[in-house]
């Protein structure tokens, strides 16, 4: 037999055709999009009656709208969440808001996709050992376990001047004010000052800066100053990406006043912000202190300073180690001494240190512009994340005080916050180891006692010494030989409760902390909505509601507090943090009562007393009434009479206002009008007016009533005045050298938020930014033979990363510097394996921005995939995908 030629041809033709058909199989994408996993027809709305009867609720265009605040950055944009058919379907800006005027960025517009995301945690998960899989347990069982483990950890540690050494709380600038307040109250009542939060990584230096310059925390003006300013001095901030709504405001002002509005951007990197800059000052990373002192030198020597303002309202201070006891106070010096101190920092000297494109002429030009026009300075992590963060904050404020560019319209030293509630929750709510709510400090006996009186707990409940700051706290968990050497007398921590943050991705030099957390003698409780790089090391994961699924207040950069009411039902058995605290404290109190140790038994009462005022509200309605009760205690009692008073800002007023309330707002009438825009100005700030009357300071237009500057021990020439600090130049902790010749700096990108556990799950954003990259100067790239997209090996003394390169000719870091984005969860692209954990001795904020590294080409370009930590079902429970993957451990 055989096959005919024609047959053969026919068949082969058919085969070819078939193979061609087979090449392209149009497989339709799965139609399920995020945020829609609720069953059809289910109504997800949970709107309290009180909200329904307020201006924060409306029906329009077939949608039901509820007003709240954006979940992301520190700008504090007011948003409307829209429901269609009972499901969250859209977010849009509030037009009457004085912050965003209806504008939003993409993160803000898309976060509704995270309600009912399939990755959401919906039940408490527990495991005894970190090697086992997680098993779901009930809430009651979870409380029992936490209480037992906590008492065990307390007993393992000892009683110290800062309280129990074995336990710690690590909070977040993204937790609501009520939550931070109640969490820190609980931990102080249990008896420890080991209360910290991630604002230590982002805002601590600004706190130190304001505290030393003004005697009290937080800025004097607000965003409204952008509209009346003539010069915007941006230093260490990529406003275009990190605060896009504010960037828009600045840009619009610039366009409205052609020629009359100057933007000066000071940054070693040409960032998207540089696009609107008239002058871009590019200096070597870590030389900012010299540059700012040189600006002051020009202002003083050319006589451009505001003589009246300086002589009337300013004093000069210096801190000399050995001579002065308190670094916050230092001692007073004369103007002549300040002049002598500045004489070293000539523009020529500074230009030589700063390098980059800085010339003496440029410094003179900028200083003259700064002094002769109304100027607003804005800065963020570029200044704060430095080993001399407090000093450099002081130096910026110095320029404003010298030139009188403060306490008037269009002139302010404004530190932009990174997180939505770092100001409101943590700085005002007492979420750090050395501060207590209402701008009180732990070290002050008077402050502690006033708080104990309000709380109704016995005197001496709050330990008198500050606890461990972030780096020390996590070192006490890893507790290696090296840690003990670095912090003499370090006591180990065996229990940590982490709230709404992922420190095991966001801490610097994170490897050693991760190794510590992997041990089984540390019990880790994490409150989270999604699996993260931190839940990976948890013993107990408590699922909590997302934004708009619980009620609470966020306080943004400009001292503004805004309310977000509950509007969406939380998935599964999620419980709001406030309910968790109240219920857990009752369990803990019962267990403490049965203890033998009298010190522990005595704490049973204080712990119960801590939550006693909220037990009824928690039973009645944990979603709205409980938050309201906590806020009432915080605002009406704790902040009353303090400079951060929110006594007038009740929930009713906050629901009414389209843009929240700026403290000081001592009465409801003032709060109804939006509070105080300008602090320290007599006539505009009710507290200043009162203060001047009380202390008989006739003729004072501006008064610094910050508690540190009113101490009776101060010389009269420094009292009630702003302080100009003498801060010498100091370089970074780890400058580049022959072995590690590059400077490594890290930052954020517009559409990705911090560790990307939320934004990484919004498909639209994640498809644009699936992985992090390193920005390299084209000249360096050419020298090292690195092409765009190539995988680059970054090595520091602490770790290494493999990251794709991006080389742009019109944007990017200066020569000798590389810039990496830190949102990526993939282990090899987590840049915090490389960053340095040296910290500011004043603010204890680590120096993320500068460390030495070396780079080389690792592999040619290849497609990379997004990596997200997820829970997967395994035999006997759940594990994180990262725990199963040996590459990721």
């Amino acid at each position, binding site marked *: 037999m055989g096959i005919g030629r024609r047959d053969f041809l026919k068949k082969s033709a058919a085969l070819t055709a078939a193979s061609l058909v087979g090449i392209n199989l149009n497989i339709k994408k799965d139609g399920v999009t995020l945020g829609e996993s609720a069953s059809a027809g289910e109504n997800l709305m949970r709107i309290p009656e009180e909200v329904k009867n307020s201006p924060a609720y409306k029906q329009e265009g077939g949608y039901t709208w509820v007003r709240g605040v954006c979940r992301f950055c520190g700008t504090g944009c007011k948003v409307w969440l829209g429901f269609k058919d009972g499901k969250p379907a859209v977010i849009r800006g509030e037009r009457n808001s004085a912050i965003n005027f209806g504008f939003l960025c993409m993160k803000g517009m898309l976060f509704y996709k995270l309600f009912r995301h399939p990755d959401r945690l919906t039940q408490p998960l527990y495991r005894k050992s970190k090697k086992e899989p997680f098993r779901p347990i009930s809430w009651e069982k979870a409380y029992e376990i936490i209480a037992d483990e906590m008492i065990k950890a307390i007993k393992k540690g000892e009683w110290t001047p800062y309280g129990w050494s074995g336990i710690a709380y690590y909070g977040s600038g993204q937790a609501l004010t009520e939550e931070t307040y109640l969490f820190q109250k609980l931990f102080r009542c249990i008896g420890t000052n080991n209360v910290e939060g991630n604002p230590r990584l982002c805002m601590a230096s600004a706190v130190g800066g304001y505290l030393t310059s003004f005697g009290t925390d937080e800025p004097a003006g607000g965003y409204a100053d952008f509209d009346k300013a003539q010069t915007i001095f941006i230093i260490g901030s990529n406003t275009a990406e990190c605060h*896009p709504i504010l960037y828009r405001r600045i840009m619009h002002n610039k366009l409205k006043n052609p020629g009359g509005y100057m933007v000066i951007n000071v940054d070693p990197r040409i960032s998207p912000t540089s696009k609107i800059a008239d002058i871009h000052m590019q200096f070597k990373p870590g030389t900012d202190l010299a540059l700012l002192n040189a600006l002051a030198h020009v202002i003083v020597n050319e006589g451009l300073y505001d003589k009246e303002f300086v002589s009337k309202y300013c004093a000069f201070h210096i801190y000399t180690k050995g001579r002065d006891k308190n670094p916050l106070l230092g001692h007073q010096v004369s103007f002549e001494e300040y002049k002598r101190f500045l004489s070293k920092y000539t523009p020529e000297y500074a230009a030589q240190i700063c390098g980059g494109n800085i010339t003496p002429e440029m410094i003179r030009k900028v200083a003259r512009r700064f002094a002769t026009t109304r100027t607003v300075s804005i800065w963020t992590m570029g200044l704060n994340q430095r080993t001399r963060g407090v000093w450099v904050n002081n130096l910026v404020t110095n320029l404003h005080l010298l030139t009188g560019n403060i306490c008037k319209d269009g002139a302010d030293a404004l530190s932009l916050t990174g997180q939505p509630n770092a100001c409101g929750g943590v700085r005002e709510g007492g979420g750090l180891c050395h501060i207590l709510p209402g701008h009180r400090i732990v070290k002050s006996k008077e402050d502690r006692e006033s708080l104990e009186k309000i709380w109704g707990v016995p005197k001496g409940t709050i330990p008198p010494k500050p606890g461990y700051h972030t780096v020390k706290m996590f070192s006490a968990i890893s507790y290696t030989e090296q840690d003990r050497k670095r912090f003499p007398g370090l006591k180990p921590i065996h229990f940590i409760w982490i709230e709404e943050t992922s420190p095991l991705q966001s801490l610097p030099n994170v490897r050693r902390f991760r190794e510590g957390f992997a041990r089984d003698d540390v019990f880790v409780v994490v409150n989270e909505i999604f699996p993260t790089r931190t839940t990976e090391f948890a013993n107990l994961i408590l699922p909590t509601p997302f934004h708009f699924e619980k009620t609470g207040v966020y306080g943004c950069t400009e001292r503004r507090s805004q309310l977000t009411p509950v509007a969406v039902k939380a998935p599964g058995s999620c419980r709001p943090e406030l309910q968790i605290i109240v219920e857990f404290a009752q369990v803990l109190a019962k267990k403490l009562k049965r203890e033998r140790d009298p010190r522990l038994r005595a704490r049973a009462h204080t712990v119960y007393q801590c939550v006693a005022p909220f037990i009824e509200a928690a039973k009645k309605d944990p979603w709205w009434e409980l938050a309201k009760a906590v806020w009432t205690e915080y605002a009406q009692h704790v902040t009353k009479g303090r400079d951060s008073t929110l006594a007038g800002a009740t929930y009713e007023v906050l629901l009414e206002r389209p843009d929240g309330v700026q403290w000081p707002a001592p009465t409801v009438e003032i709060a109804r009008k939006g509070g105080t825009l300008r602090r320290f100005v007599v006539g505009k700030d009710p507290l200043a007016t009162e203060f001047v009357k009380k202390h008989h300071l006739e003729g004072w237009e501006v008064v610094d009533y910050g508690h540190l500057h009113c101490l009776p021990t101060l010389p009269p020439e420094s009292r009630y005045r702003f302080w100009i600090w003498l801060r010498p130049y100091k370089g970074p902790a780890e400058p580049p050298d022959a072995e590690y010749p590059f400077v490594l700096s890290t930052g954020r990108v517009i559409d990705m938020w911090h560790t990307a556990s939320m934004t990484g799950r919004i498909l639209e954003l994640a498809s644009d930014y699936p992985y992090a990259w390193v920005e390299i100067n084209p000249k360096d790239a050419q020298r090292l033979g690195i092409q765009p997209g190539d995988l680059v090996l970054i090595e520091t003394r602490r770790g290494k990363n493999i990251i794709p390169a991006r080389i742009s000719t019109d944007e990017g870091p200066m020569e000798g510097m590389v810039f990496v984005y830190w949102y990526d969860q993939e282990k090899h692209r987590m840049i915090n394996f490389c960053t340095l954990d040296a910290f500011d001795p004043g603010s204890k904020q680590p120096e993320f921005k500068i460390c030495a590294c070396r780079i080389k080409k690792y592999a040619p370009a290849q497609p990379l995939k997004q990596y997200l930590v997820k829970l997967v079902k395994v035999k006997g429970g759940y594990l994180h995908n990262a725990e199963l993957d040996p590459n990721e451990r």
Partner: protein
Amino acid sequence: MEKKRATEERRKFLKVTLGAFLSGALTSSCDLSRLKNPKTMVKSPIGPNILRPPGAVPEEHFAQKCIRCGRCGEVCPYHCIKYFDVKDGGVFSGTPYVNVMEKPCYLCMKCVYVCPTGSLVPCAKEDVRMGVAVINRQICVTWQQDKTGLMCKTCFSVCPFSGVAIKIDHDFRPYIVEEYCTGCGICAYSCIADTWYENNGKKAITIMPIKWKKIKEIKLEDIKKS
């Protein structure tokens, strides 16, 4: 004369049989009813968002030049190069394309070097002209910011030539500089205008294919026409 007629007859006969053979061969393997339009047998399926890979010769020559070897798709690290099916366009079946809405071209320029026939001509990244992006200002959330209040810079920040091929004006509204747009489609793929509730899932950017010759002197009017 008669001979000539006979030749014509023969030619006609040959044509008919060839046609019959071809259609027979095709029907044996695939259902003809799947062909959307019989015309697609000869009409190029290249259209909005469906583009040739980088460096492709003009469309009228492409199908003749390409030998359907499949190397370009093989080497593409992002798997964005796909091949036309018979049902997409008969004579174009097996030729490569990029559907930017499924996966855009990331301009790695690997495909042009493996093409054995010169259907894809090696060129520099910035010289690629797969098409040109066109922004629908009625859909773009930033162009409609009076209505939406949104400041989206997504297309601008993802563009490999951001600031050159896509620029943003003082209100963050994006516009395309046609002269420099490579048509890679990353902006169209990333556009998130479809998530805005009033847009009914429409994206604001479309990549229109352009003719090779016109690359340098292409004008806005031409794009509007197309």
